[in-house]
């Protein structure tokens, strides 16, 4: 399991994420992002769905773009169906494409407490890299 910490940004939220490999980085980035949204969120998986993220056009193959597109996919599911990602099973994961089966809990405003809406993952100072030794790290800022 990867790790993350929050760094100070005056208006928004900065996240530094580390993973043992690219799938671990993406999973940890998702957990870190959704951790900012809830004081007390859903814990049990209720829905399993396939999630596919593919950077397109000139941006294909960029790991930075992969991270952004992956998180956008998950945020879209939250906003349209209140789904919160809890469990991850990666079927394919390269900078060109990620395919995963994701177990989601469903946010219920009557039972759970949410704190912040994440509007977007920004490109400002965005950095995703494979570090020496094959681990991965990322730094990104959420607009909240």
């Amino acid at each position, binding site marked *: 399991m990867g790790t993350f910490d929050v*760094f100070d940004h005056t208006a928004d939220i900065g996240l530094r994420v580390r993973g043992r490999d690219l799938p671990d980085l993406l999973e940890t980035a998702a957990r870190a992002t959704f951790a900012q949204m809830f*004081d007390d969120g859903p814990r049990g998986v209720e829905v399993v769905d396939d999630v596919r993220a593919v950077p397109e056009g*000139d*941006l294909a193959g960029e790991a930075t773009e992969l991270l952004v597109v992956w998180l956008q996919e998950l945020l879209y599911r939250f906003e*349209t169906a209140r789904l919160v990602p809890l469990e991850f099973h990666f079927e394919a994961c390269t900078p060109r494409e990620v395919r995963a089966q994701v177990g989601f809990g469903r946010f219920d405003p009557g039972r759970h*407490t949410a*704190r912040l809406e994440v509007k977007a993952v920004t490109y*400002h100072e*965005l950095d995703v890299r494979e570090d020496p030794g094959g681990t991965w790290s990322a730094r990104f800022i959420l607009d909240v």
Partner: protein
Amino acid sequence: MGGQGYDGPLEPAGECRYRIPKSYRRDMRVDGIIYADERLIEPIRSDNAAEQVVNVATLPGIQKASLAMPDIHWGYGFPIGGVAATDPAEGGIVSPGGVGYDINCGVRMIRSDLVLDDVGPRIEPLLTRIFQTVPCGVGIGGRTRLALSEMRKVLREGAAYVVRHGQGWPEDLDHTEARGCLDGADPDAVSKRAYERGQNQVGSLGAGNHFLEVQVVDEVYDPATAEAFGVAAGGIAFMIHCGSRGFGHQVCDDFIKTMRGAARKYGFDLPDQQLCCAPVESDEGRRYLGAMRAAANYAWANRQALMVLVREAVSTVFGKSAERLGLRLVYDVAHNIAKIETHDTAAGPRPLCVHRKGATRAFPAGHPEVPEAYRGVGQPVIIPGDMGRYSFLLVGQEAAMAETFGSVCHGAGRAMSRSEASRRMRGEQVRRDLAAKGIMAMSHSWKGLAEEYSGAYKDVADVVSVVERAGLARKVCRLRPLGVIKG
């Protein structure tokens, strides 16, 4: 604060003005100008905002200067509090990062015939009723889900769509910037995902720094203009801060992808990916402006619908119609937007693309876009502060047209990160502190409330003072919160 800070030049350039000369960095096309005084300039140095002013000064076609208002702080791409105008005829660009994800985030202020003696003893039932009536909080949508065909009408018509469906009064549109609708909205430039995200969110407040406040006018500085705006000392007002919700966020996401490709296509060498952009007069630029205008119109429809819910709640509590309570819209301003406006340049009056990223339009008396009722005094400029102190109502002045493309600040501006705020404060403590000041607060999240506590923001009085001393706008009155709803 956060970031590395700024150690470049900040040269005093007259009353409340600091210049970053374009010689500071080779890629700057114009100077940077930051409106601030000695008290505000130091915190501005401590985060990355001034460097972002420099980055914006590199954008193709930028005119006059990269401008920053006294509430400036570190954003993404543009600083929050940034203003930049580009000339399309000189290859000037439009940048989604110069508008932000919450397209047409803005504020509206509603005045009333109620006074402090009416509301003070009933603030609890009033705030509770508003909290129950207005959908707010993370993941909470509006009361109705719009069909796609209706969504397209919202995107074209803006606030007028809501009024046409019996929600509000025709005169509300007269008192909304651009009458609540930008021409040139293009519903076909908007993605399916944006429609999906926006379908059930018209009439919802959201969360974060969006709020709804019950306020009392506690100080009047300019009685004649206050009278023209329909406000007087002791009067009760309502303020709504919200934007285009998930619809606008998706439009921005979609076009940042487009613009990253476009920036490469047009050979722009940008210092920050978030500044990605395309010429206004390009296919990418035109499509973005069409989609952004659609999102701006969505936001005006949203704030109109929210105001109608507030009117409904207040009417119920006081047992009188909104008309009898005088719940009239003073004005609605956008503070995250790009608009084509005519401004004076060295080559004479030209249509420019004015980006306001955390900045408010502030047109002076006589400007044709100021509503007829206010044309003799100038445009109302609504500047919310933090929930524990006060907000201000200003009026636009001529100097804003001459210097800042008719723009001023948009709020207090954060002085502290959210994590720092929650390290220093707990939500329960914030609620108690507010109660001790006679302010009732309601929120779905105590921690969220802590992140928004007063000390996390600059004192908006300092910000407004700079704007006034610089001659950009003049104070009309101050409003003190009695009740605060945070999503």
